[in-house]
């Protein structure tokens, strides 16, 4: 099978209930991450880099920021004459109550696509892979369905689905929320299936009123030829505020950055014409990631700083994640905060979260 014979379908609201404040006004897909990216950039870039040129993003609610981020899709080279990226919001009173119904309502979109395969994916997975190998193995195995998994610990707030497979990768059983100690073969919520079978399965599920997607996957694994494919390389699932904070901080590791942001498989994101970051005469920066468009005059330590942030003289900022265009006043003292977009913190303010409990400051807050 060819890569460009695959339609990508991404759920934009993965784990949105457990990412609490971050997803109050936006989809999980559009949560800022890693300084200049949004969560969906990883899976979307992976698809684009693997020649999956037609991608639908399922949007359930609060998708203004997602639409703004994706735009025409040209930043991912997904704005083509014959294919591209489409945001799929609820329409004509149709309710996207659960995954099965959502996929059923979108069967027209899937049917009309020229591609013969469907690759479902979640938006809160951080990884950099070439899907070509998955496509190759799917056809070599003559699989009906291939599930993508990773041997890893269970994320904090995820209902885990684990996979037991034989030595050639054929799935023997899928477990829902089993008791897990240490690592398990965790399903990443991603599957490859032929369009024909996908439409059959979803239509059948609706007609039998089987609306629990996890249960369905478990059932399909019993009734069909289902294979498992382990995601090569680094993989993180962001299911909680804590994991979000840890992941951002883990990017200080040069090896991880090298693995996630590769020259020949770049992670793309919406482009903003920011100037290079400017460091003033009074700046002091240690162990931090800083994006373009920032102006740093204060002291920064162990921080991930997004585009257009201004940290004024005398401010001491440590262990914080600061999202775009936020302004930190003079002589502020901040630590263990997740400061959302467009926040203004006046001079001389002190605020502190804890390592185990980073405090989130809402978008557009003004702290006087």
């Amino acid at each position, binding site marked *: 099978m060819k890569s460009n014979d695959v339609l990508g379908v991404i759920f934009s609201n993965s784990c949105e209930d457990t990412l609490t404040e971050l997803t109050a006004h936006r989809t999980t897909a559009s949560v800022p991450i*890693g*300084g*200049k*990216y949004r969560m969906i950039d990883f899976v979307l870039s992976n698809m684009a880099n693997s020649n999956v040129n037609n991608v639908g993003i399922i949007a359930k609610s609060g998708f203004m920021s997602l639409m703004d981020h994706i735009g025409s899709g*040209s930043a991912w080279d997904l704005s083509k004459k014959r294919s591209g990226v489409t945001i799929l919001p609820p329409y004509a009173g149709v309710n996207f109550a659960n995954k099965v119904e959502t996929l059923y309502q979108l069967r027209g979109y899937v049917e009309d696509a020229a591609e013969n395969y469907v690759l479902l994916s979640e938006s809160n997975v951080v990884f950099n892979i070439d899907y070509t190998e998955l496509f190759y193995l799917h056809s070599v195995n003559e699989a009906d369905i291939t599930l993508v998994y990773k041997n890893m610990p269970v994320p904090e707030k995820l209902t885990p689905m684990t996979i037991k497979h034989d030595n050639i990768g054929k799935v023997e059983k899928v477990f829902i929320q089993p008791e897990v100690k240490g690592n398990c073969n965790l399903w990443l919520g991603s599957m490859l299936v032929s369009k024909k079978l996908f439409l059959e399965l979803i239509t059948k599920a609706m007609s039998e009123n089987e609306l629990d997607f996890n249960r369905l996957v478990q059932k399909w694994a019993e009734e069909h030829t289902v294979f498992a494919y382990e995601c090569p390389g680094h993989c993180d699932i962001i299911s909680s505020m804590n994991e979000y904070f840890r992941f951002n901080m883990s*990017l*200080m590791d*040069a090896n991880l*950055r090298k693995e*996630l*942001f590769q020259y020949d498989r*770049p*992670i*793309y994101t919406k*482009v*903003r*014409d920011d*100037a*290079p*970051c*400017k*460091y*003033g*005469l009074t*700046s*002091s*920066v*240690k*162990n*931090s*990631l*800083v*994006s*373009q468009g920032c102006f740093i005059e204060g002291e920064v330590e162990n921080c*991930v*700083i*997004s585009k257009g942030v201004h940290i004024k003289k005398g401010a001491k900022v440590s262990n914080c994640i600061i999202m775009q265009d936020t302004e930190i006043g003079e002589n502020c003292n901040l630590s263990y905060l997740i400061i959302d977009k467009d926040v203004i913190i006046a001079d001389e303010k002190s605020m502190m979260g804890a390592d185990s409990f980073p405090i989130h400051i809402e978008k557009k807050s003004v702290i006087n």
Partner: protein
Amino acid sequence: MIPKQKVVAMVLAGGQGSRLGVLTKKLAKPAVPFGGKYRIIDFPLSNCVNSGIEAVGILTQYQPLVLNEYIGNGQPWDLDGMHSGVNCLSPYEAVSGADWYSGTANAIYQNISYIDRYNPDYVLILSGDHIYKMDYNEMLEYHKKNKAACTIAAIDVPKEEASRFGILNTNKDGSIYEFDEKPAHPKSTNASMGIYIFNWKELRKYLIDDANDPNSSNDFGKNVLPTMLEAGERMFAYPFEGYWKDVGTIDSLWEANMDLLDPNVGLDLNQVYSRNPMMPPHYIADGVKIQNSLIADGCNVQGDLEFSILFAGVTVGKGAVINSSIIMPGAVIEEGARVEFAIVAENAVIGKNAVVGADPENVKNRDDWGVTVIGDNLTIGENVVVPPKAMIDKNMEVEK
């Protein structure tokens, strides 16, 4: 038929820029990297779109590959319209034969049909090697108000530098009565910025006459403008106030970059568009001192920086020191290396403990001092010392 454009801009980008030495060995001057993430051509192109000019021709001749690739379809500057946008125009072969662009005026002459397609009222002629931000609309309003045939943007330069420029001597109303090309004893300090607005109908006529004159060197400054003045056309100098710099030499290129770090210089980078590197934010390690510098995405900084500019994807090793230097994309400064008052071109590698350039304070004879330049993709080996003012175009190793 293409919808009419009121103004068409033509950017002269064909010159070799030989005074930039190794920096322009494989690329045209307008494609030389500038300011941490830009190329020089970004400035005139961004000025055009910010002034609402949507049809831009770029006249290329010398080493156009990098420039052509960089411009691409013009999307980063919003110059990818359905009926307008940016086009790179190189010399071509026609029924009458094939010619290189023999001068600035000839380059426009050979592209008369390109301009005619848009049926414009005005043509704006720009240089591809100047750093400045300007609203061409204001200049156009000035041109219209004066009912001029030609308006030339002029900037006030220091008296002692005036003899390096083309000087415009004007009457009180701003009309030009004399051109003085690099005068030994300048009468005024009104220097031409090489930015012209012409009424297209009139310019078209003068270009054809100029092309038919076998004695002409087909240059705007030397031929077309003096001819127009002699013929009694209304020509005006448009006074421009703001930052402007011709970056045609190593010193001026270095100075213009350093100006970005000087809060007293009125050059900001807002609304200057460019292609953006697809790289993660830059990383600053523990125990590093960074003062008054610009750093682009993708850099990994483990050494100290002072008054310097790092382009995208630069690596600075542990204990390295960079002072008053410009490090272009992908360059690597290895551990313990010292780079001072230097320009290091793309993907060059400065080996461990190598010393490149010097602080003028530490040079005995000031005449021996100058900005050091390392060409692209070169390797300067471990412990090599590259003296100030050197221009390096081949790999260097310590002699054994």
